[in-house]
């Protein structure tokens, strides 16, 4: 009998039977759940293209066994926008030309969302660069990526403050 897990993906509860207990979260998303927005770059946890949030924490989905995620809450690039309204990080990536070919972009954005919620980088460019260095961009749109993360961080802090007020 194949094991099955229950997890929440982009707010939707899913029960998934695992044909192969060794399946990674990345392959599960792309090949079983019709969520190809998360990309496969190296399939060994070194390029960051497959970054998603698991319980709010950024992980390389290619190194995460789906079987370990029973009860977890997963957010992928497809679940970031609220309908037509882009997440501030998504909007900042467009605003600052933070990509060229776009293939690393879903991973970069998920990583940025994770980094911002970790709260350790703030809007310091050097810390942002360090915090984003697990996500390779071969087109080297790093200048735009750094500024986009900086800008999104500021916008999100401002919005939080306004909400609190």
């Amino acid at each position: 009998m194949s094991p099955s897990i229950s997890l929440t993906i982009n707010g939707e509860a899913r029960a998934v039977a695992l044909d192969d207990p060794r399946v990674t979260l990345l392959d599960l998303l792309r090949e079983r759940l019709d969520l190809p927005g998360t990309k496969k770059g190296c399939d060994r946890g070194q390029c960051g293209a497959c970054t998603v949030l698991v319980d709010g924490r950024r992980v390389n989905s290619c190194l995460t066994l789906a079987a370990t995620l029973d009860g977890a809450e997963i957010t992928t690039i497809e679940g970031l926008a609220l309908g037509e309204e882009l997440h501030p990080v998504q909007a900042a990536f467009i605003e600052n030309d933070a990509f060229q070919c776009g293939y690393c972009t879903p991973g970069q954005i998920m990583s940025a969302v994770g980094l911002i919620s970790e709260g350790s980088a703030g809007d310091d460019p050097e810390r942002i660069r360090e915090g984003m260095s697990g996500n390779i961009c071969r087109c080297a749109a790093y200048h735009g990526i750094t500024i986009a993360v900086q800008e999104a961080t500021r916008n999100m802090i401002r919005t939080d403050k306004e909400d609190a007020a």
Partner: protein
Amino acid sequence: MSVAKPLPHDAAKLHVTGAARYVDDMPVPADCLHLAFGLSTVAAGRITSIDFDPVRDYPGVVGVWRAKDLPGPCDCSPSNHDEPLLAGNTIRYLGQPVFLVAATSHHAARHAVRAVKMEVQKRDAILTVDEAMAAESRFEEGPRIWKRGDAGEAIDAAPHRIEGRIEMGGQEHFYLEGQAALAFPQEGGDMVVHSSTQHPSEIQHKVADALGVPMHAVRVETRRMGGGFGGKESQGNALAIACAVVAQATGRPVKMRYDRDDDMTITGKRHDFRIDYCAGFDDEGRLLGVEFEQFTRCGWAQDLSLPVADRAMLHADNAYYIPAMRVESHRLKTNTQSATAFRGFGGPQGMLGIERVLDHVAHTLGRDPLEVRRLNYYAPTKGGAAPRPPAADSPRDILAKKKELEAHPDEDLTSRGAQDVTPDSSPAPTVPEGVQTTHYGQPVEDFILHEMTERLAESCNYAERRRAVAAWNAENPVLKRGLALTPVKFGISFTLTHLNQAGALVHVYQDGSISMNHGGTEMGQGLFQKVAQVAATSFGVPLESVKITATDTGKVPNTSATAASSGSDLNGMAVKAACDEIRERMAEHLAKLHQDNPRDVRFEEGMVKVGGERIPFAEAAQLCYMGRVSLSATGFYKVPKLNWDRLKGQGRPFFYFAYGAACSEVVVDTLTGEHRTLATHILHDCGSSLNPAIDRGQVEGGFVQGAGWLTSEELVWDETGRLRTHAPSTYKIPACSDRPDVFEVELWDGRNIEETIYRSKAVGEPPFMLGISVLMALSDAVAACGTGYPSLDAPATPERVLAAVRKLRDGV
């Protein structure tokens, strides 16, 4: 007007929401088959036995193919027909596809290939430059030699002379999206192929050839690539052919994508080079004669190595006038991956050779390298000579061309690897007075590097920082700083003249929306956006009115690869020609309706102004439709003025040059060899930029990739010919934290003197070579450790830098 605006990428919203589809993201029917190659495990040898039973028995496997099971050779080569899809019994490199497995899933296919039992009799492999030279293992009959004057004599007569050698490594493309193809069999034996390729026409040609069908039976579509950088000019052929062959055999859709390790093990990379040099110069550092001997390992098959090596020879002058010059180029055949196109296409390697010479000359004389560089620059030309009327095509030697075609009936004409025995096109270039020519005879008519260098040196405080670096180095024994400002002059055009053409297809629909297609492919360089801006500007409509559709061989035929930085130049002009045609038809009809002169009809701000009235563009389109005016047109463009004879090494291979300059400052830890780029200032020439935001991205990205090539990206083959750096764990690509702490990019505000699309300049490759400034700055820092010349090779990894430091300090 849309052109010249910094608008975001056309698919920006799709990218940030994960909705942008790449080949592997496309939904496929449930019966889709997945392929994997079984690879050779030695670099040279002969297969003595092979047992597929365990592979066939693997769950999910549907079929196994060896070379003899294929419908024909299924050649994948873009040039010499020397690349069969699968090896026969002879193995030519480690990683060569030997057999093909089709299975019901990607994983099943990958696992199954490992079950094979293959026995191979090893042979001695030719891996290095020295081995290849000793064995006379090369492409072409001998070295290619181009010269001007007698360089040997000039060097002998010169007051000073240096000799040296620089070795530079290759480079893995590491396009984030690996190679991928997907084939759908159609009725009547037709085939539709989706391919992550820079060259859909090439895929179409190779697939048709493999299937034994005419090109019209194969349609290739490319929406986008997740990066190309040259690695998808010919390296996607194998996957597309494999998919099509299996799809034809099984009648099922077939998909193939390489896993990263396979991708790096199978596919070609940038050519590594060894360049030996000898230069004679005067007391000030003025070059009087230079000799280069360039050696490059081309790998097991010819691929695009000849034009790559040609371009290295063409850039052996970079920005410098060298009165006597000799360049000898050896294209060596080795038992390694077949080296291929990579951003710059040999240009960076040739350019690094002469930059090394300039650095070495300056060090020998104890002069500032920038002064020596400027001293040797081509003569300034004040924005170029007076424009000349476009030259008419000269009468061609039709018989010779015909003979050439007959000798190669299946010649892949749209490939850069195609033969070009008979030069055609314009008459030989005339040289205006006061204009110097390159070593291959092309006049340098718009040499703007004097002004650009002046401005960059000023804006980055070069002189002051030069003093500060010297002061720092005098006081600090461990951390040494280095500074270098290097120029780029890069020739724009395919050196195979006939490739410099493009087509486009534009439709205006009755609601005023516009659909546009051209032969260029989108790989992140923003081509689609730039070309859409051209179309929107032509019709005076907002950009949202223009839809750019996937590149499709069924819409625009016989296209050239999106390569050689030519995408916007060629396709922009072709699209403009199509738009102009439709606009003229519309203007004529509307003028007639309003008793106006067609020439006075204006297309602006979404409106058409005619006969004192302003009609919305959509309404104008409707009126034209009702008036039975054709609202569809093809456009065509061919680059003028080209004339090139590659055998002689003479003529005008380039329409124009693109320029740039970069100043980098580095710091080196002389105890470990580790280094860091502290600041980089760039001034780059995009002519009159079509889209400054996209162009800046190309400049920044090109520089980082170029600096990566020369510092951290190291390919290592072991003594058996196995590539040991086949994943990002062992192959270091620049990350976000590796970019310079201070990184200033400015675009030169100028216009192309040639009539390009809105007087812009190509921008894909030229900025890559700005990365040379980092290597030269490292050389400068190492030089501060002693009195000798560092002769720093590339990539200047900490290991190499440390070795260079030790050599200078201790002589070991």
